[in-house]
């Protein structure tokens, strides 16, 4: 080595490639898997554990599983019987929504997915408008599509709604509504006006202090008692309002965390330039504060998405509710495991998607400070 380094005159030393043992696959494995003796032992144990766990799962879910057939007689019971899911698929996805009207739901899905894909197209102009459409325009279109009763579409009552569709409606409304309401509550809680501040604190602490189950029970059982005779609110709307306020209270505290994390200097610089309160918040403070708390916001979204299964207790059959309903059908007793695995997989897809999207956003919005 010392002979080699004399090949170069001082000050002219070129950049040499790093030694092979510190880069590439071998280097990575050496550093991460076999760096010390305990590390090596853990690596070996982990590999053994995976070898013990994964083959039976793959065997159950794929190799020995039954894929074709129409009735439970087609199930060999050696592995998972996905025939169960296949037979019940429409109910799991759409509940008791009339078969002839399911295209309305699918159309809304297609619009949402298409707009969502456009958001990912790099360099496309007008992305803020697409975002605005998804948050403001799409819910209106979806409302008319789902409910019907106008534009020549037959009425579909909400008790017929169910399955993954209902889960997406409840969580979608909760997510879209909770962020703006949460922001307003968070700003209100930091307001200098005592009345606004106390109102916001009361609202937040009240909703955050009760379990969602209680909120839903109150919405479905107690709330109607306070309504005048004959007046009836749709059960789904009551549940939606409950979920909305509940998640807004959580969101408010997440956003407040972001507002408090910003240095005071950002507020002062914006004020010193003559920006009014709303311009300061909208242009300077919130863009930074929300970016800071993306992990917290998505955390709340994911929690909300999974909490929607609680609507089962007030008689709404969401994705998990339909799985349970199908599992208790006399013709299909004994297929609960397949149902729950499928439900878990469905929830995981959505939650993982949200998680990946938030990481993508964080990376995109990083400005090197």
């Amino acid at each position, binding site marked *: 080595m010392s002979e080699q380094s004399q090949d170069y005159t001082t000050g002219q030393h070129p950049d040499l490639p790093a030694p092979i043992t510190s880069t590439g696959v071998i280097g990575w494995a050496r550093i991460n898997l076999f760096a010390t003796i305990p590390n090596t032992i853990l690596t070996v144990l982990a590999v053994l554990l995976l070898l013990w766990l994964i083959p039976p799962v793959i065997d159950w879910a794929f190799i020995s599983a039954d894929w074709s057939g129409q009735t439970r007689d087609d199930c060999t019971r050696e592995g998972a019987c996905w025939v169960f899911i296949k037979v019940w698929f429409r109910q799991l996805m759409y509940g008791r929504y009339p078969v002839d009207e399911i295209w309305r739901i699918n159309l809304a899905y297609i619009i949402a997915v298409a707009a969502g894909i456009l958001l990912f197209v790099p360099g496309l102009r007008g992305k803020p408008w697409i975002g605005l459409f998804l948050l403001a325009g799409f819910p209106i279109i979806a409302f008319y599509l789902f409910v019907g009763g106008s534009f020549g579409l037959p009425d579909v009552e909400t008790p017929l709604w169910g399955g993954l569709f209902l889960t997406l409606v409840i969580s979608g409304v909760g997510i879209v509504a909770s962020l703006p309401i949460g922001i307003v509550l968070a700003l209100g809680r930091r307001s200098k006006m005592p009345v606004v501040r106390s109102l916001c604190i009361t609202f937040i602490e009240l909703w955050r202090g009760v379990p969602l189950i209680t909120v839903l029970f109150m919405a479905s059982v107690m709330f109607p008692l306070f309504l005048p005779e004959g007046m009836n609110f749709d059960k789904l709307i009551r549940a939606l309002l409950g979920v909305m306020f509940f998640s807004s209270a959580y969101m408010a505290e997440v956003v407040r965390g972001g507002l408090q994390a910003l240095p005071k*200097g*950002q507020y002062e*610089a914006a004020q*010193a330039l*003559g920006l009014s309160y709303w*311009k300061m918040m909208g242009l*300077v403070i919130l863009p*930074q504060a929300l970016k800071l708390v993306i992990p917290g916001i998505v955390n709340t979204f994911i929690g909300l998405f999974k909490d929607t299964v609680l609507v089962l207790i007030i008689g709404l059959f969401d994705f998990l509710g339909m799985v349970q309903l199908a599992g208790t059908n006399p013709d299909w007793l004994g297929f609960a495991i397949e149902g729950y695995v499928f439900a878990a997989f469905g929830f995981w897809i959505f939650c993982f998607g949200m998680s990946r999207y938030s990481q993508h956003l964080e990376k995109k919005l990083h*400005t*090197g400070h």
Partner: protein
Amino acid sequence: MSMNPHGQESSASGSQMAISDEVAIQLNNVHKWYGQFHVLKDINLTVHRGERIVICGPSGSGKSTLIRCINRLEEHQKGQIIVDNIELTGDLKHIELVRREVGMLFQHFNLFPHLTVMENCTLAPIWVRKMPKADAEETAMKYLERVKIPEQAQKFPGQLSGGQQQRVAIARSLCMNPRVMLFDEPTSALDPEMIAEVLDVMVGLAESGMTMLCVTHEMGFARKVANRVIFMDGGEIIEQNDPEQFFNNPKSDRTKLFLSQILHH
């Protein structure tokens, strides 16, 4: 200790811009408390248009608080502050009117990290002055050239050095075309080699006739550009004079002590 800024001998640099009779800022018997703590005590100060004032004093003397009262980042409890013939009261309209005419520089620059340098400079002109975007960008480019960093326009503040960030902050303020500039220790957070580049821009600004109030410990800068140096201690203005007199012939003992501490170490 009132003094007439006119007919005063020129400061060390000899570059004297005309100071008009017009009063830019007027403070009458201003008091301020933080809770029970009396930070500003009976401050009387008249700043004429085109004047360049350096405020110095030990830490905790209230000098930052004083200039922060002038654009109402801090609220005073007693007395009168009039900027550009607008009195600062609780009236939000008045406060916003004053703020758009008064630029301010901070110790920690306070650029908006989520916006590019160009967007930092055009934000207020577009949203407060309702300037068309193209015009705002043209103005911004002019001032970025003046602070000698036009090539950084598309970068984010986090990618710039401290000195560059502070120069962007100066450009950002100038884009609002302010009539008065306040500086709150603009070089205190900078490495020595960056202080010079910021001070150069500030000297240039002074030579263009900007009305400036500057809290700083850069006594070289004070000698070079100030018309008047104000010494504060314990929330009071102890002494004010032209730089020549202030540095060579300080009157009060506290001033002498302060000067000896910052000049001889």
